[in-house]
């Protein structure tokens, strides 16, 4: 019987290696806060963290950064007045800033087997300096590569034992695409449902993309 549920946070986080690239979903709601806490506790070092924004001084990203286990942050937005901003200024955190849509598309590309793509976004900005560009259909485009995750940390509203997920309202955000893009996709779900409770046509993230699910009631 397929059963992707794991009993404990430690079991959910087991085996994450030093140097791993970790995709963490969330845009306000939809942030897998328990799993991010678990990552801070799990002890893997030298991590690359991929998420939309570097956060503020509190919350799951800040907690994770404070443990000092993050070597590099790939995101679209960092505030000067935040843990990430100060670590970057102090030279203890590498930073790769990616336009938010390009970030989403690079993550999806990793999940979909696209090995590189050309986009106009950022092509005529300082973000393109020293990088490969090409004019396609009269538009200057920038070559972008997929962001593959070793691990994805995902938030869900419902999960069945196959790992079929729903996400509530705008808590969906990066969750379905990050789930696609990692070798090991770990989910925290607010609700556990019976197989079949989620209608097939309304599954938001299919279980094929999910390896482990932890029940974290809200």
């Amino acid at each position: 019987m397929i059963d992707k549920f794991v009993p404990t946070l430690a079991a959910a986080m087991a085996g994450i290696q030093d140097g791993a690239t970790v995709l963490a979903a969330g845009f306000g709601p939809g942030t897998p806060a328990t799993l991010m806490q678990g990552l801070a506790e799990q002890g893997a070092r030298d991590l690359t963290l991929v998420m939309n924004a570097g956060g503020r001084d509190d919350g799951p990203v800040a907690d994770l950064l404070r443990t000092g286990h993050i070597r590099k942050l790939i995101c679209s937005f960092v505030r000067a007045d935040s843990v990430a901003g100060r670590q970057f200024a102090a030279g203890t955190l590498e930073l790769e800033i990616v336009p938010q849509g390009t970030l989403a598309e690079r993550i999806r590309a990793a999940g979909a087997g696209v090995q590189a793509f050309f986009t106009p976004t950022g092509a005529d900005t300082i973000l393109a300096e020293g990088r490969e560009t090409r004019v396609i259909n009269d538009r200057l485009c920038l070559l972008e590569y997929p962001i593959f995750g070793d691990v994805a940390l995902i938030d869900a509203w419902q999960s069945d034992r196959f790992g079929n997920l729903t996400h509530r309202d705008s808590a969906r955000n990066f969750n379905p695409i990050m789930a696609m893009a990692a070798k090991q996709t770990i989910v925290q779900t607010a609700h556990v449902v019976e197989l079949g409770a989620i209608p097939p046509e309304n599954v938001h993230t299919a279980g094929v993309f999910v390896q482990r699910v932890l029940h974290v009631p809200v």
Partner: protein
Amino acid sequence: MSGSAFKPLDRDGIAERIARDIPEGWFVNLGIGIPTKVSDFVNDREVIFHAENGVIGIGPTPDAGNINPYLVNAGVQHISLIVGAALVHHADSFAIARGGHLDLCVLGAFEVAENGDLANWARSPDEPVKQVGGAMDLAVGAKRLWVAMEHNTKGRGDSRVRKICSYPLTAKGVVKRVYTDLAVLEVTPHGFAVLDMIPGMTKATLEERTEAALIWP
């Protein structure tokens, strides 16, 4: 600065002025800041508002007692949905922006140049903070890009309406129209054309307050 009798629009005033130009049926993304306020002024028309985090059909700001913690806009402020809304994931949401499906995007800016260049994400190439967000995607992807900003900087009063942008660009040649607290300017192949001014504003004063050349009707 001129002493002529005019009262610059406040932030709500700029938003209201923009709202007046949005026809029913448009599909619109509003940036953080002044742009976010635009939706408050189009209640008489069906205009569909999009947010980068996957919301299609943003409704009115909810009362404190009716907040849905799972529902925010691109500024992570609590929102409601209109009847007929749809929710998608981040890549699909940016497919809307980047794929040319937005009739309009309204963004804030530090500077706009007469060739349509937009600078709205950094004040220096080596600024330690990096706040790109979704602006570059929206700027290149929307069918029309309008900017909402104050005409001049606070303090020194420098013109944000420029011959050439001095800050790092968000995208080149993308701005179609600029709504400031003083005027509405259209970006044309020949530079900024004045479409409208606030009551009491004069040609001389607007030119004094604007670094770029202005084309008068």
